């Protein structure tokens, strides 16, 4: 594979040809990585929808050094040799990101105090970093009643940002998809055919994949805020999946089971519904140890004990 040189925020990195700008930036790591709400490295065809990862290409390639005329989505743009990309060093990009954040929040109810995702929500992080202190719109937000899709997953369409990740999970992980995006434009919504249940062994991964609180675990619903629970790595012998999970414990009680997420909020491996919903007893799991959490994460707050 031939290597190409690309400069992102004045940091040079060599990546394989065919890599996207986002993945090249992830290779550098740190602040230069653009935030991504819809791109998911494990899901084929994801990305290009939310526009939070827009970057400026100041120089197209070594052969053709003209800049690209508009900001480009870094998750869908492939690097070329000698490309110069600006992310946080470009005020234009930062302003666009602010506008995109505002745009994503147009119909978002901002019910973080109620939402179970609060504390590990990508949209919350994004609006904390780039959002405005108040909204410029006074129009009514579109509202939907929360619905049950299956007996384990709750859908709050109000909070959805239409990233299509859950649709792709159902398409690529399971053999039968019964939910999808209905309607067009502003009327888009995630739904099933007349609340047909989503019951597949891997449908629970939708919850982990959802960047916001639109799809939440009904077995954990309102049990606790995430920062009052402590994450532990654990595994079990599972005939369906790898069985490698994170247990979210409060005292001796397992409140929630999720997959292991990396620093970009993406699952390392997908887990099955049996592990996720059915095994909440101490004896089901072999605990490996406390999960490392980022120093500034709210999940680490107020945990003074060792």
């Amino acid at each position: 594979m031939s290597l190409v040189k690309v400069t992102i925020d004045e940091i040079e990195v060599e990546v394989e040809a065919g890599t996207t700008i986002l993945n090249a930036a992830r290779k550098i790591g740190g602040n230069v990585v653009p935030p991504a709400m819809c791109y998911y490295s494990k899901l084929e065809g994801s990305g290009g929808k939310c526009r939070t990862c827009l970057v400026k290409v100041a120089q197209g390639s070594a052969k053709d050094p003209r800049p690209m005329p508009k900001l480009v989505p870094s998750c869908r743009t492939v690097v070329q040799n000698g490309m110069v990309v600006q992310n946080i060093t470009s005020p234009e990009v930062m302003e666009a990101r602010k506008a995109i954040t505002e745009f994503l929040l147009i119909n978002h109810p901002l019910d973080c105090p109620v939402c179970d995702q609060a504390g590990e929500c990508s949209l919350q992080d994004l609006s904390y970093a780039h959002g405005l202190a108040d909204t410029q719109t006074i129009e009514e937000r579109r509202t939907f009643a929360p619905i049950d899709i299956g007996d384990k997953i709750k859908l709050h369409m109000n909070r959805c940002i239409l990233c299509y990740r859950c649709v792709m999970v159902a398409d690529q992980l399971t053999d039968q998809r019964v939910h999808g995006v209905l309607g067009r434009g502003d009327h888009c919504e995630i739904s099933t055919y007349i609340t047909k249940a989503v019951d597949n062994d891997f449908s629970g991964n939708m919850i982990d994949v959802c960047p916001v609180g639109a799809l939440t675990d009904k077995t954990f619903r309102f049990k606790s805020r995430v920062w009052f629970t402590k994450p532990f790595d654990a595994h079990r012998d599972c005939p369906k999946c790898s069985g490698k999970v994170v247990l979210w414990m409060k005292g001796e009680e397992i409140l929630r089971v999720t997959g292991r997420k990396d620093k970009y909020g993406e699952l390392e491996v997908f887990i099955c519904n049996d592990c996720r919903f059915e095994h909440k007893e101490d004896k089901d799991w072999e605990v490996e140890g406390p999960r490392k959490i980022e120093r500034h994460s709210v999940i680490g707050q107020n945990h003074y004990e060792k």
Partner: protein
Amino acid sequence: MQALTNRSKIASNKKMSFMERIYFPAIVKGMFITIRHFFGKKATINYPEQTREFSQIYRGMHVLKRDDEGRERCTACGLCAVACPAEAITMVAAERKSGEENLYREEKYAEVYEINMLRCIFCGDCEEACPKEAIFLTDRIVESEYERLPFIYGKDRLVEPVDLNLRIDISARQTENVLKFKQNKRFAHNK
């Protein structure tokens, strides 16, 4: 070596003079200071017959507010508990059932909400963290008890009564700037 502050004193083993050795003048001097205070203004008051005037923003016992329609404002978001430096607040959330819309304002509410008044340091951080304007500190005083258990205040003692006349008034705590800020139409959702 140079001292870091001017508060340190160098100890000396200097011999006491005759006047110092008989102690009597020092005792008289001490008694004089004590007796002088009998006739001065008293530093104490006869509580509870008399009470002191509180500052408008005195931080005493908490109240969990209800909104204008009598619904509980608290949605058990846990921000007060995570802001609390003394870890005095605990809560258990529950989902509102249909038919309870007149009791709780949001989809989720605090089924159990407890403040350990022995741990609480009355710093007011919970009040500041609250996104729903649900918890306020008031000028009421936490009553003394003989045991420790009654100091754990549950919702029965924290939530204010539904009756409009018995509501706990916290308007004095809110400065003009705060009230003006709330007039903004964009914050109508928090009414």
